[in-house]
């Protein structure tokens, strides 16, 4: 029933429209600059709203627990993914490390979509989950690089970890920055800018997911690097990660909605910050593999099924 609600939500239907249009090889495309503008808008909006909520609720022990759980998940999930990608996926160490980093990190749009869908079903996650989202972006990059380079002496020479790029990447800056602005401004300061950042939010998300549908389908069709094993892993890994995330969230005492959201964060795979970091730090890893898996398979899977699955799981064990 919940999945039906999800599938008839305009947000998801626009994603499907984009996917279908690209599959039909339509020339429909969203201008890049507009897509990037929407992604900045969406991040600023969730950062602000999260900050305002935290300004209202204050920082509690639950917040600390969620933050630690998120950090730990982002650090450790790549280890499992790496093993699966090496054994079952047959990837080289470098490729497996790069892909694993994607699965440990998170997808902002998956988070945003989940927040909208869950809120629409009366299951809105806590405001501080935005901070957890931001915290989970980078640790996985470090574990992924460590996995890729383990026992490899000349790896650390030329291509050292791009710390600076990773810590100041655009999505971290804007998420953290607008989260802090939200805290400083509070409800009163937020009121005059609320019409743009709150009222218009869902509509923009529709158009953004239209674009993501186009991008995901095109990536899938144009890739020459995918095989059945990799496609399966791009579904198995998020399912596993999502289950672990939801479980950990429930364990550390989060409410049902926030535990489900932690599961969705764990299940989601980065396709913005991590690919850029991997291109810099592991230039020998093949972008065709990590982008096709995270964007072409895992993203659609999470949007259409994952959100409902982990929400149901969180309710069952919550």
């Amino acid at each position: 029933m919940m999945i039906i609600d999800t599938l008839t939500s305009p947000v998801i239907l626009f994603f499907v429209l984009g996917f279908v249009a690209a599959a039909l090889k339509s020339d429909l495309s969203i201008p890049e600059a507009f897509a990037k503008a929407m992604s900045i808008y969406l991040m600023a909006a969730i950062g602000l709203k999260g900050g305002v909520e935290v300004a209202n609720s204050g920082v509690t022990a639950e917040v600390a627990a969620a933050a630690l759980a998120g950090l730990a998940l982002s650090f450790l999930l790549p280890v499992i993914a790496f093993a699966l990608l090496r054994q079952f996926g047959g990837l080289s160490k470098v490729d497996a490390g790069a892909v694993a980093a994607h699965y440990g990190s998170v997808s902002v749009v998956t988070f945003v979509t989940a927040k909208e869908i869950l809120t629409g079903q009366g299951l809105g996650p806590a405001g501080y989950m935005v901070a957890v989202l931001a915290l989970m972006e980078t640790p996985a990059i470090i574990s992924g690089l460590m996995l890729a380079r383990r026992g490899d002496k000349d790896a650390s020479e030329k291509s050292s970890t791009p710390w600076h790029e990773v810590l100041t990447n655009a999505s971290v800056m804007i998420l953290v920055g607008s989260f802090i602005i939200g805290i400083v401004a509070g409800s009163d300061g937020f009121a005059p800018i609320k019409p743009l950042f709150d009222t218009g939010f869902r509509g923009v998300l529709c158009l953004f997911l239209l674009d993501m549908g186009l991008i995901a389908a095109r990536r899938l069709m144009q890739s020459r690097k995918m095989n059945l094993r990799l496609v399966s892993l791009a579904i198995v890994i998020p399912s596993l990660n999502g289950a672990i995330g939801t479980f950990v969230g429930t364990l550390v005492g989060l409410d049902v909605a926030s535990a489900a959201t932690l599961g969705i964060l764990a299940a989601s795979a980065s396709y913005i910050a991590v690919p850029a970091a991997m291109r810099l730090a592991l230039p020998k890893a093949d972008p065709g593999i990590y982008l096709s898996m995270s964007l072409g398979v895992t993203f659609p899977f999470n949007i259409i099924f994952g959100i409902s699955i982990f929400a149901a799981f969180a309710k069952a064990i919550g």
Partner: protein
Amino acid sequence: MIQTVSRKRIEILVDTPLVPRVVAQLKAVDISGWSVIHVDSGGGRAGEWQDDDVTGASAKTIVLAIASETKTSGLIEAIAPLLDSYGMLLTIGDVQVLRGERF
């Protein structure tokens, strides 16, 4: 008549996230000027692509630099080992320039 001199026109097609690395290489061999041109889409052995700017990682860019022959040779030496892993394509053409002392 106005004097022109021969220089090399270097065109480097490279993954957008790696542009700073390429620029660093240019500076390392003392090529002090460059211009960056956006590439919209393309295709090659690894399939076709369009810039989507959301996942910037797969977009390509052209770094254009005019330089003397000596500096160009230096650049080739420095950049050749990176060509494969950086997914680069490097072409060098001959051009005449005005105010050649700048390059």
